[in-house]
Structures are given as structure tokens and as C-alpha cells.
């Protein structure tokens, strides 16, 4: 009994310390306060984007297809055999960033977001602060179709050509991959790292060096455009909490006011796919952990039980 009391004291002080340095301290560090010092609690929007105008008209995919040339002046749609007019490096030189290929756009982005984005890109992407009048900068995406019907038609077309199911990597590439590299997933802003073979006499790999040079130039344009190079996402899933990632992707300004990161407008499903990819590259041991954990814990439960029997065999005669 006395030992249990001592154990309770030890556990009590351990837990107090733990609570203080972990949950409590992290809450204090990351909480957001308004001007009056009151805590702001972020309310998750479940990727519904309630601030955007609801789409009231029904899109017509055929009509969207008829006017898709309004998009393909800058964007490629590879799945429909439409090449982008400039390659990624040249686009980055011209716009700062490569306009995305639209093949998978309908599958990863939210429909309402896309319609609003076509009608009013900077507002919808929450980047108006970067492209204020007099800043001398213009957002590469112009207002192509300010009326809801045309926008809805284009989105209906994009949805009609989008695959039903994207792999986590495809979702990541479509939503994040033009600005963020993921070196553990062998991904650069210009695509997968190619498999090359070094010259065995000089031990140099000119093909790889040329690719790296291209990536460096692209990143240079991108860094100028964004203000800094967007971070590599290899293990972002462990560097930030999942909750932060969700809120940040849903509404970047709410978590990091002034950030250059636009609201990309992924759908709930698109977000889950992206997170799945980030887990694949950043925390690949998770499934193994979950598989091995119960066995190891089971082992030590039995070990403790056997040790208790051994201890009793020795200690029962002592008093």
C-alpha cells in the first residue's frame, strides 16, 4: 500500500511536469490572440470555403470545352493532348511560376472554389495583399470569365475530363508540386528526378547536373515571385501538426498572416490525398509502427507478469 502511495506521488509530479511542458506550453506558444488579447480559436471549415459565393448556375461541359482555348493560351491539358505553349522553365521566367496543367484540376480542387477563382483569382486565392495597386506586380492569372455561367461551364468541362480517382502523388503534384519540392519523394518543381548514369571514367553525371541547373533556375524565378523559396515538403507532416496543416491549407492567412502561400482550394478529398502523400514520404514507418506496437507491448505485459511471479517466489518468505 505504501508503495502505491509513493507511486501515486511520483506519477502526480511527473504528469504535472508533462502537462506544463507539453500540452500547456505548446498551447501558449501557438495560440493566436486578437488586439484585445483574447484568444482566437480557428474554426475548421471542412474545406467548404463558406466565404465564397455559392454557385447557383449549372455548368455545361460541352460549352466549357468550346471555350477552353481561353485557358490553353497558358495552361496545358496533357490528358487531352493539349500542350502548354511554354515549357515549365520558360513559364517560370515569364510568370514567376509555371501555370498548372489542368488534367487533374477537376479532381483535386473544390468546384465552388474553381468557379470563384476563374471569376476573381486574387480574391479567391487570398493573395490580394501581394498584388495591391501600386505594388507593380500583377497576378499571372487574369480574370478570364467574370460571369458565373461561363466559369461554371469551364469547371464542368474540367470535372468531366478529370479522372475519378487520383493517386496521392497525383493529388500532391496537382495541388502543391509546382512550388514545393519533396526530395524524399524524388519530386522537384520540374517533375520527378530523372534516373541518370554517371560517366564511369570522369565520375561526373552531366545529365543530372543539367537537370539540377534547370531546377535551380526555376527555383530562382519562383523565389523571386513568392518572396522566398517555398519549403521542401518531404517531412512537413512531422514538422507541423496535422491540425495546423489542415487549417493552413484551408486558409493560409489565418495561420501565418501575410504569407505568400495562396489558398489553393483543395476539396476535402483532395486534402486527404495530399496528406496521404505527405505521410508516405514524411512518415513512412507509421504502418510498421502500428503493426509492431501491440506485439512489443504485449511482450512486456507478459514479461512483467512473469517477473512479478518470480519476485513473489522470492519475497513471500521474507516477512
Amino acid at each position, binding site marked *: 500500500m*505504501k*508503495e502505491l502511495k*509513493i*507511486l501515486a506521488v*511520483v506519477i502526480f*509530479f*511527473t504528469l*504535472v*511536469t*508533462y502537462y*506544463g*511542458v*507539453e500540452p*500547456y*506550453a505548446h498551447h*501558449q*506558444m501557438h495560440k493566436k490572440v486578437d488586439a484585445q488579447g483574447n484568444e482566437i480559436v480557428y474554426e475548421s471549415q471542412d474545406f467548404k470555403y463558406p466565404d465564397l459565393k455559392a454557385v447557383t448556375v449549372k455548368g455545361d461541359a460541352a460549352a466549357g470545352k468550346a471555350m477552353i482555348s481561353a485557358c490553353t493560351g497558358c495552361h496545358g491539358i496533357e490528358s487531352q493532348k493539349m500542350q502548354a505553349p511554354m515549357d515549365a522553365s520558360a513559364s517560370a521566367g515569364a510568370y514567376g511560376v509555371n501555370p498548372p496543367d489542368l488534367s487533374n484540376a477537376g479532381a483535386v480542387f473544390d468546384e465552388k472554389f474553381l468557379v470563384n477563382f476563374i471569376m476573381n483569382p486574387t480574391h479567391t486565392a487570398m493573395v490580394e495583399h501581394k498584388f495591391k495597386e501600386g505594388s507593380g506586380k500583377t497576378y499571372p492569372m487574369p480574370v478570364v470569365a467574370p460571369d458565373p455561367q461561363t466559369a461554371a461551364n469551364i469547371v464542368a468541362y474540367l470535372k468531366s475530363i478529370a479522372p475519378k480517382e487520383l493517386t496521392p502523388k497525383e493529388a500532391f503534384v496537382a495541388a502543391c508540386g509546382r512550388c514545393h519540392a519533396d*526530395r*524524399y519523394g524524388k519530386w522537384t518543381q520540374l517533375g520527378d528526378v530523372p534516373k541518370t548514369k554517371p560517366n564511369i571514367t570522369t565520375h561526373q553525371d552531366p545529365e543530372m547536373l543539367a537537370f539540377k541547373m534547370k531546377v535551380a533556375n526555376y527555383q530562382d524565378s519562383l523565389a523571386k515571385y513568392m518572396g522566398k523559396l517555398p*519549403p521542401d515538403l*518531404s*517531412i*512537413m507532416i*512531422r*514538422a*507541423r*501538426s496535422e491540425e495546423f496543416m489542415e487549417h493552413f491549407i484551408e486558409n493560409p492567412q489565418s495561420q501565418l498572416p501575410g504569407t505568400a502561400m495562396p489558398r489553393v482550394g483543395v476539396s476535402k478529398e483532395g486534402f486527404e490525398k495530399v496528406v496521404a502523400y505527405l505521410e508516405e*514520404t514524411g*512518415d*513512412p*514507418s507509421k504502418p*510498421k*509502427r*502500428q503493426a*509492431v*506496437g501491440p506485439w*512489443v*507491448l504485449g511482450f*512486456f*505485459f507478459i*514479461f*512483467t*507478469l512473469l*517477473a*512479478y511471479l*518470480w*519476485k513473489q*517466489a*522470492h*519475497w513471500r*518468505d*521474507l*516477512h
Partner: protein
Amino acid sequence: MAHFDKAMPFSNKWMDQRLAVNTLQRVLSTEYWIPKNINFLWAMGMILAATFGILVVSGIFLLMYYVPDASNAAAFDSVNYTIMSEVGYGWFWRHIHGVGASLVFLIIYIHMFTGIYYGSYKRGRELIWLSGMGLFIVFSAEAFSGYMLPWGQMSYWAGMVITNLFEGATPDVLGGALNFPHFVEWLRGDYVPGQAFLGRFFMLHVLLMPLVIMGLIVLHFGTLRIPHVNNQDGEEIDFEESAALWKAGRKKEAKVIPFKPVFLSKDVFVMGVYFILFFYLVFYHFEFAMDPVNFDPADPLKTPTHIYPEWYFLWSYEILRPFSKNVGLIWFAFAQGILMALPFLDRSPNVAPANRRGLFGIWFWLLLIDMITLTIMGKLPPTDPTFAMIGKVAAITFISLWVVLPFITMIEKPVGGKK
């Protein structure tokens, strides 16, 4: 001149003639007497030894793939990519190593406070305390150098901040002979923490510090052998008399038990309970020991929003933080050194649980609560004036507690109770 009878090679007799294995066995385990009147807190020593063993084993596997290269996030990727996603069970060793490094300090603190509470640093046990405190300091160095190795943001900035403490702190004595104007650069081998810095901390972590720790562990065990382990009541036991009773089979009357197997059986049981907690943390709750900030690669051009040491350094960090740099450094050194002096600052001859020692009992619980307060305040953002104030008060309390210790123990009445 030794005498060697004919004996079967490697038989007990053969081994005993050459290595005195029977004597060793007797002296080190079967007739190493431990008081019977103990509780589970007496198992913390063996738990520490086991945890250290686990850290060594997991460290060996990590060392096979770790690359101490500060360029292009190479060290970072060797830990976070190669070990975590390529090496079979690499994640397992890393999580064990990270959680173990944290838990070893939890147990060290429990072990230390147990010693303070029961007065196990007096009456022949001074060297146990001193060698133990030596271990605490070397473990701290081991933990800090290990924290540099993943070369993440927290590694880099901890290295930067802690080495900067020594900027201008070197003494200008002997006509400047000891005055290093560039001491910090000398320490780092570079203007900032870089390749040279990582290389030398790697060496400290995987070789020098472990060697010192192993030596000190042997010393720590050695210091126990003659004064013996204390017991729950601080009772002075006649070990020879009690051991004779045990050997005569009068186990109920003997006040002692042999280390092996009786004491060990209890140790192993407590260890089992501890391992359940340990592996629960390894598999399901490791974030506390592997800070997310350190999953961003080191960036010399960007300080993380919040930097803080690992939890076990927080109390001494908080003693440093509220004061100006040099004053803080003095108090920091005071905090590290003063614990060493405990056996000499406690002027009372009483060896008894703190709760039976009047003022010292109050002193003990105040010290514990104060150190936990310092720990918590050490992590909270210093920009909040309330936390900063609580931290400062706790730091001053810590210093005051040690100043008053000799006085309150001097007037302490002798404790009766068990002989």
C-alpha cells in the same frame, strides 16, 4: 605464487583458479547485501543501467547509417530519410533512442530526489552522491551533443545559443594568457555552428561521453559497495550480523537480502512496468521527445519562432533566462554546482526520510515544486510578463533555498525512531 590444480578447462574450478569467478560472484551479487526495508524507488538505479544499455544498443544501429555531414542537409537526411524510411527497423531504433534519452532524465531526477528525500548522501555515502552528480552532468553533455546530430532547426539554434553563452565570458587573467577573444569561434571551429562543430559534437556523443559515462557508472557502483544502499528509514544496519542470519536460513529475521536473486527479482519486476511505459511512448507518444521544430533542416538565416531546450534542461535554463547575460551565467553555474555540494551543505547528522526531519521536509517539497515550476516556466514564451515574473521568482527561490539549507539543517533536532 598462484597454485593451479588440474581441472577440466572452462569448468567452474578451472575458471575460479584463473579469474576468481566464485569470489566475484559472491562479492558482486550473491553476498552483496541490500536492506530488506526498501520500496520500488530503489530499483531506479538498475532501470537507469538498463536504459543506458538500450541507448547504447539503439545508438550502435543508428551509427551504422548516420552521416555527420553539415552540408546540404546530408546529416538531416541520413536521419530522417535513410534511417527513418530505408533502414529496416531504423525508425524503431531512432524512436527508442529519442524516447530513451528523455526517459533516462526522468528516471535520473526520480533517482536524485529519492536520494535527497531519504538522506542517502550522508554518513559514508558522499561519494555515491558526487559520482551520481558527475553522471548527471555527463549525461547532460551526452544529451546535448546528441541533440545536435540530426542537424535540424532546433539542433542548429540550440548550438548557436548555448555556445554564444560563452561569448566574452572567458577570464582576462594571467596578463591575458587565458583570455580568448574568439573563444566562441574556437569552440565551434567556425564562425557559426558548421561542419567542424557537428564533427566534434559527433565525436563527443558517440565516443568520449559514452566512455566517461561507463567509467563513472563503474565508480558509482563502486562507491555503493562499502557504505551499502540506504533504506526507507535511514536505519543503520549491522550488515555482517544480518548477513549471518540470512545465511543461517533465518530469512524473516535478517534485515538484508542478497542482491541476486532477491533484490534483482524486484528490480526486474519494476523494470517490466517501466518498459511498458517506455514502449508505449516509443510507439504511440513519441512527439514529446522528438520536437517537430527539429524536423525542419538547419537554416542559418532563419530562427524558429520558439526555441527551447529539451524538458530536462528547462529548470537550469530558466535560472539563466531572467537575468542579464553574465549574471545569468553565474546563476546557471551555481545551479549546476550547488547540487554537488548537497552532502556538505546539509549540516544535520540525521539520515532519515525528509518528512521526519522538520524544516528539511518543507525544504525538500519546496525544492521539488520550485524545480518543476522552473521547468514549466522555462518552456513558456518569455514574452508573457506573468510567466516571466513567475520564472524569476522561482529562480530566486531556488537560489535562496540553497542559501538557507545549512542554517535549517544546523538547528535540526536529532531524529529518534528506529536505530
